C-alpha cells in the first residue's frame, strides 16, 4: 500500500506534466509564426503584390499572378462548395435521424478525412486527363473539399436554432421552405458564416489538390481554361529551388498566405462570438 504522501506526490507530478504539455503544445505555433514573420517581413515589399515572378538570377519580382490566382480558385471553389454544402446541411438538419441523413453525415465526415492528394488525382482523372490542366479543374478539386466541410458546419449551426422559432413561424402560416430559409437559416447565419470562413481558410492554403489540376503558371492568366498560379504552389516550387532569392520569396509568400488564413480564422471566431450569441438569446 502506497502512502498518502507518495500518492499526492505522483498526483502533483502528473498535473505538473499537463502544464508542461500545454506549454510545449503552444510552442510550435509561436515558433512557426515567429519565423514566418521574421523571415517573411524582411522580404515583403509592395513589389511582391504588384510584380510578376522574375526568372532565375534576377533580384526582385513578386507573386501578383499567384495572389490573383488564389483568389480566383477560392471563388470557383466557393461557387461549387457553398450552395451544395449549405443545401446539404439544411437537409441533414431537417431530416435528422433518417437512415439517408445518417449515411450522408457519416460520408461527409469520411470525405473530410480523405487526403487532399486523393482529391487531386480524382480531379485530374475527372477533368484534366482529357481537357488538360486548368484553373477550373483546380477550383473543382477545392470545391469538392469544401462541400463536406460546409455541410457539417451548416448542419451543426442549424441544430442550435431553437425548435420553438421554427414552430412559431409554421404556426403563423409560413410555408416550410420559407421557415427554413428566412427564419432558421437567417437565425443561424452568423454561425454558418463562421463555417464558410473556416472552410475558405482551409482550402486557401491547400497545395496537393492543385498540383495536377491548376498546375501553376509563371505568367499572368485569369482564364479558367488555362493553368493558373496559386500562392501555395509558388511557395512549394520556390522552397524546393536552390536560390536564396526564391527562398526569400517563399517566406514572403508564406507570410501573405498565413496572414490571409489567420485573419479569416480569427474573423470566424469573432463572427460567432458577437452575433450568434445575441441571436440565440
Amino acid at each position, binding site marked *: 500500500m502506497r502512502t498518502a504522501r507518495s500518492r499526492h506526490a505522483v498526483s502533483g507530478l502528473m498535473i505538473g506534466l499537463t502544464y508542461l*504539455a500545454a506549454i510545449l503544445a503552444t510552442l510550435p505555433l509561436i515558433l512557426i509564426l515567429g519565423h514566418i514573420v521574421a523571415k517573411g517581413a524582411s522580404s515583403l515589399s509592395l513589389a511582391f503584390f504588384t510584380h510578376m515572378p522574375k526568372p532565375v538570377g534576377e533580384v526582385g519580382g513578386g507573386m501578383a499572378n499567384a495572389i490573383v490566382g488564389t483568389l480566383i480558385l477560392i471563388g470557383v471553389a466557393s461557387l461549387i462548395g457553398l450552395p451544395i454544402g449549405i443545401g*446539404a446541411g439544411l437537409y441533414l438538419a431537417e431530416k435528422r435521424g433518417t437512415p439517408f441523413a445518417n449515411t450522408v453525415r457519416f*460520408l461527409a465526415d469520411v470525405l473530410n478525412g480523405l487526403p487532399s492528394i486523393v482529391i487531386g488525382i480524382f480531379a485530374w482523372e475527372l477533368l484534366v486527363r482529357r481537357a488538360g490542366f486548368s484553373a477550373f479543374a483546380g477550383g473543382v478539386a477545392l470545391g469538392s473539399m469544401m462541400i463536406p466541410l460546409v*455541410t457539417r458546419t451548416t448542419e451543426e449551426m442549424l441544430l442550435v436554432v431553437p425548435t420553438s422559432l421554427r414552430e412559431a413561424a409554421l404556426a403563423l402560416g409560413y*410555408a416550410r421552405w420559407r421557415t427554413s430559409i428566412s427564419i432558421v437559416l437567417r437565425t443561424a447565419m452568423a454561425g454558418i458564416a463562421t463555417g464558410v470562413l473556416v472552410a475558405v481558410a482551409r482550402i486557401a492554403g491547400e497545395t*496537393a489538390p492543385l*498540383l495536377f489540376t491548376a498546375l501553376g503558371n509563371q505568367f499572368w492568366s485569369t482564364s479558367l481554361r488555362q493553368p493558373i498560379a496559386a500562392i*501555395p504552389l509558388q511557395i512549394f516550387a520556390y522552397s524546393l529551388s536552390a536560390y536564396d532569392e526564391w527562398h526569400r520569396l517563399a517566406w514572403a509568400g508564406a507570410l501573405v498566405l498565413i496572414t490571409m488564413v489567420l485573419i479569416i*480564422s480569427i474573423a470566424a471566431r469573432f463572427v460567432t462570438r458577437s452575433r450568434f450569441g445575441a441571436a440565440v438569446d
Partner: protein
Amino acid sequence: MTSLPAEWLEKEKDRRILRVEGSAVSDRIYEVLTAACALVVPALVIAIALAIFVAAWPAFSKLGLSIVTTSDWDVRAGHFGAAPAVYGTLVSSAVALIIATPLALGVAVFLSEFSPTWLRQPIGFLVDLLAAIPSVVYGLWGIFVLIPLLREHVMPFLRDTLHLGATPFFRGAAYGPSMLAAGVILAIMALPYISSVSREVLLAVPRSQREAALALGATRWEMIRDAVIPFAKSGIIGGIMLGLGRALGETMAVTLVIGNRLEISPSLFAPGYTMASLIANEFSEATSDLHLSALMAVGAILFLITLIVNAIARWLVWSVSRSQAR
C-alpha cells in the same frame, strides 16, 4: 374588439387555402433541391472511389500485390514496387502519434481539468490554430528551421549523448531530411486534431464521475486516471485515429522534409518516402500508362487506408457522444 366583415373573412380564407396549396408545391421543390445537395456527398465518395480504382485497375491487374510487397521502383524497367512508400507512410505516422499523443492528451487534460478559466480560451485557440496553418508552410518551416535544428542538435543528442545510436533506430549520419523530420512535422500537424477531440470528450464526462472519485479519497491524478479517462476512452482513441488519418495522407509538408528516397531503413535518421509524396512527385511527370496507373494504385491504397481509419475514428467518437446523450 370589432368583428371583421364576413366577405373579407371569406376572401382571406380562399387566399390562405391557395397559399397552403402553393406552398405544398414549393415545399416539394425545396425538399427535392436540398435532397439533391445531400445526394452530392455520397455521389462524390462513389465518384472518387470509382475514378481512382478504374484508373488503377491496369496496374492492379498487371502487377497484383507486388505494388505493395516489392521494393523495386524502376520506371524505365516497368517495375513498380512501392513497399518503401507504404513503410514510410506507416512509420512516419507512427512516429508522429508517439510524439503527439502524450502532448495532446496532456493539453486536453490541462484544459479540461486544471487550467485557470482565463487561460482556457487562449491556449485552446492557439493549439487549434495549428490546424489552420497550410501544409506547405509547415514544409517551408521544416526545411529551413526544423531540419537544421534536428541535424545540428537533436540528432547528435539522441545518437551520442543518449547513446541511442546503439539501437538500429537512431543510427547513421544525420543529413537532416529524414523519417524523423517527417514524424516531427506530422506530430505538430496531428496535435490539434487529437487534442480538440480529446478535450471535448473529457469535458463531456459527467461531474458526478469526478466527484465520486474524489469523495472516495482519490487524488486529482487518480481521479483522472481511474474515473475520467476510462469514461472518455473510446472518444480519445477516436481522436487519435483522426490524427492518424491526417498524418497518413499528409502530402506537402512531408514531401519537403522526408528526403524522398525509396528505401526501407530502420533508422529514423535515414531519408524515406511516403505514398502521398510519391504521388505528388511523380504524377505530373508520369512517363507511361503503367506508371500513371501504378501511381493511381498507390492513391487507391492510400484512399482505402484513410477511409478505414476515418470510419473507425468517426464511429468511436459517435458511440461516445451517443452513450452520453442517453
